């Protein structure tokens, strides 16, 4: 692997891991606050899975540059994170959280299905591993979109408001990183352009079948993973506080 490919791959793995980590944290904010116990547990399970996925992506990066996953997660500042803005938005209400998880799961399931054929074997192996877990997420969040979309007037209104707010942000999942083209050319990662069409087909159909309308104006669409909303700062302040205060966290 030449240096250019290696650097591009490190950047891509970081973005993948950061998305999972930040989303896991947002989901975990519901622990103890879910609408009913079963759903509290379900979302905690999903958060735990996403955290497991982040660990695998950071681990893969580590084999390339020797970085320490714990330091990357707990000691970087917001400006050094490369997650998309969608995952850092505050958790909002239940509809907002579940819609975000659904849009992300649909993207992730498609990305992983393509990435399991990567020419870079370690990445193909991680993708194949994670994909098996992802389908349970999609099954769950897809059902929630339908349940709330076709539920009551209020649940539909909340789901529609979530969709109006998130649709533009979600498009960022398909914006390639600068330098990602070289990875696509080498067959290391899938081409996001092709995946976007499939994702649009699946999500549009499911959203419409769930009584929701796609926003006529997609709204703000972030394009750079160097940019973040103000919400990432407060998220990290909470997520990193223990590690920054006592890295070993051995004192209770």
């Amino acid at each position, binding site marked *: 692997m030449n240096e250019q490919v290696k650097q591009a791959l490190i950047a891509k793995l970081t973005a993948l891991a950061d998305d999972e980590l930040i989303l896991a944290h947002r989901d975990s904010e519901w622990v103890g606050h879910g609408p009913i116990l079963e759903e509290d*547990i379900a979302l905690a399970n999903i958060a735990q*899975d996403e955290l497991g996925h982040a*660990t695998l992506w950071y681990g893969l990066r580590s084999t390339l540059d020797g970085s320490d996953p714990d330091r990357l997660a707990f000691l970087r500042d917001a400006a050094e994170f490369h997650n998309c803005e969608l995952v850092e938005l505050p958790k909002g209400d239940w509809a907002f959280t579940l819609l975000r998880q659904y849009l992300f799961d649909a993207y992730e399931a498609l990305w992983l299905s393509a990435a399991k054929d990567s020419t870079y074997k370690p990445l193909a192996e991680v993708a194949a*591993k994670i994909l*098996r*877990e992802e389908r349970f997420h*999609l*099954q769950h969040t897809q059902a929630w979109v339908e349940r709330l979309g076709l539920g009551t007037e209020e649940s539909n209104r909340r789901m529609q408001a979530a969709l109006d707010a998130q649709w533009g942000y979600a498009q960022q999942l398909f914006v390639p990183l600068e330098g990602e083209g070289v990875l696509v050319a080498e067959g290391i990662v899938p081409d996001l352009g092709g995946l976007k069409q499939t994702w649009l087909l699946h999500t549009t159909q499911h959203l419409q079948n769930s009584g929701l309308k796609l926003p006529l104006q997609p709204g703000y669409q972030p394009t750079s993973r160097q940019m973040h909303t103000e919400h990432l700062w407060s998220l990290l302040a909470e997520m990193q506080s223990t590690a920054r205060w006592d890295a070993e966290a051995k004192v209770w």
Partner: protein
Amino acid sequence: MTPLPNAEQIWQALAQVPDPEIPVINVVEMGIVRDVQVEGGKAVVTMTPTFSGCPALYVIREGLEQAVRGLGFAEVEVRTVLFPPWSTDCITPEAKAKLERYGIAPPRPTSEFGLIELELELVRCPRCGSLDTAVKNTFGPTLCKSIYVCNVCREPFESFKTL
């Protein structure tokens, strides 16, 4: 000096290590242990994780290491591999029977699944044997289990996810 145990004896020792979350079955019958090698005075155990975010992995890793140290190895290495990914098909038939006796519906054989379709599985109630059961929650008390309820005997039960 007594010779160090061979791979076969290590396998036997590992079969004494219970799964931390489902203690009626051991890590070997769970299909977590992939390989055992003795390299000089060192034992190398290769394992594969079940669910990637499973918090029991650390306990399992320690359990494997301690079991091998208990045989007299001063140096033990536990390696992790991801490929081929662990599947519930790796659980032995005997272990699946133990799961059912323990009250957990065992996983079904895996098959190719559609990416975005909802998957409906027939799950047998481990108490009364009825197939008239319904999923209550895809996610249960641990990452590997779902919650079902039996429509015949009315009992809720856990079902191992088919992965």
